[in-house]
């Protein structure tokens, strides 16, 4: 799990660092030589499409998809479990819907042999296939989490269910930041 997270993060980071470098070159060349390389804009769009599907999945693993916990924390364990389960189910439903909608996009692209409205006229099927794979990974991850939540609910392991899926609290985030800060200062001193 941690390795999958690392892999996705490295992929995500490389996409956007690479994109930044490309854009920086494009801006400098445009300013200094007055020629546009074209395409950095277009690539930016594709980077976002692929990057956002990776980001959806990483946010899912980190329980970052925001849920308001003002009521949640006042409920009994049973109600919390019910809500956490329902949330995982609805999230899986939304991810599945995005997956199905992505199929619709791919089908249209294949039917019309669509190309990008740019000077490159990239056949859209190239970036869209990668995007589709990312969307599918998100769908499968959300489904797996919902299945596990259902299993835990069926076995009555509510405490485990709540521990796995409760909304992320500010306290958790603060603790993480403090931990990271301590590590940074340790590094700065050595």
């Amino acid at each position, binding site marked *: 799990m941690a390795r999958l997270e690392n892999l996705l993060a490295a992929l995500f980071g490389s996409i956007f660092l690479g994109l930044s470098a490309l854009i920086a070159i494009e801006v400098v060349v445009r300013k200094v030589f007055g020629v546009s390389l074209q395409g950095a804009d277009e690539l930016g769009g594709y980077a976002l499409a692929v*990057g956002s599907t990776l980001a959806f999945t990483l946010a899912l693993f980190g329980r970052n998809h925001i849920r308001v916990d003002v009521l949640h924390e006042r409920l009994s364990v049973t109600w919390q479990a019910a809500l956490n389960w329902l949330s995982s189910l609805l999230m899986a439903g939304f991810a599945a819907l995005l997956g199905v909608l992505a199929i619709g996009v791919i089908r249209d692209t294949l039917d019309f042999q669509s190309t990008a409205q740019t000077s490159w006229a990239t056949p859209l099927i190239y970036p869209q296939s990668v995007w589709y794979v990312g969307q599918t990974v998100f769908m499968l991850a959300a489904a797996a989490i919902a299945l596990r939540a259902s299993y835990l609910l069926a076995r009555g392991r509510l405490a485990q269910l709540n521990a796995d899926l409760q909304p992320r609290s500010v306290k958790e*985030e603060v603790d993480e930041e403090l931990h990271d800060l301590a590590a940074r200062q340790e590094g700065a001193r050595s």
Partner: protein
Amino acid sequence: MMVAYPLLAFAIMLAMILTGLPIAVAMAAVGIVGGVLAYGLPFLESVSPVVWGVQNDNLLTSVPLFVLLGEILLRTGIADRMYRALAMWMGRMPGGLLHSNIGTCALFAATSGSSVATAATVGTVALPSLQSGGYSMRHSLGSLAAGGTLGIMIPPSVNLIVYGSLTSTSVGQLFLAGVIPGLLLTALFMGFIAISSLRGEPRREVAVPLAQRLHALLDLVPPLVIFLIVMGSIYSGLATTTESAALGVIAAMGFAAKGRGLNWPTLRTCFIQTARVSGMILLIITAAFILNLTISLTGVAETMSAWVASLGLSATSFLLALIVFYLVLGMFMDVLSMQVATIPITFPMAMALGIDPVWFGIFVVLMCEVGLITPPVGMNLFVVHGIRPDNGTMADVIRGALPYVVIMLGFALLLIAAPSIALWLPEQMQ
């Protein structure tokens, strides 16, 4: 269409959000169900291009880039050094170190970054020295919580990008419009601190030699240069919003490499955090665009505009009502979600009353800032409460932040009375 339907749908969405279901899901569900009820299953076919369109939108590419920029500055220690430098210089003003809280938060805000991370960084370094310096804990916590809100107004601001993308308003103009209100608000906060500490609290500052203080100025160079690159390239028309973000990222990587802050564990943390935060934001935006499609197809916007026109409200009374609306909603909701969930309804109404779209963006973001420090759910209140070194109560933090809420509400009225506070700078660019 009757105005009751959209209001009912909005109420259902709010109820789903407040019971703790994922916000993106609540918005998408209302959008999809509404669309299918109105047009049947073929509605789904029109959603497909919207989903690809949002995720392929070059403007939104700036969201992960700005988040990454803030992460690099934070995790490689550039932000930490900036605070120490400011603390050395601002310690002598009335209110002393409290100014450096506001100042660092404002400067950090100007280079983007999460409010949790800002408050945690500044707070951990600041609170122990504030405590030993004899500052009242309540004032210290209040200044930290309030300083942390400046981030979403002073550009680059993810909240302004989200507003621009949802309403098709120029983000370059919004960024320029945020500069003066952001700085003015910072000045008001500092003025309040200076006045309230004139009554003389016992303080013991450690005198720092001038040479050391001058040397520390070097630590302010990276954040200032990055701010100038980002805003300068937008202002001069050299780069688009997304391009300016990319330039900022490259500059930050350069400074980080120079300060020997770059290594794989640090980068990995930056990447994971950026992915998580942008994934959360982008999923909400995707859902918002699905909801927007339903709203525009079914003519909800026109219905709401006609309704607000039929009430015979003036623009001013509408805005005053909105202040109350956002104040109450902000007490219970996360502010980004509040912004995304309400704009599809409030924006067309504001346009119907002839309110400037750029100005309205600044107004909405200001109300979001208030939402960050109003109890019971004020993100920044929880954050500073989580990092305080003593065992005080939450009520203490709330009371410390209260004066700033009053200042912000006063500022909202000022913004209504003098719209040029926001609009002057963008008008200079045209």
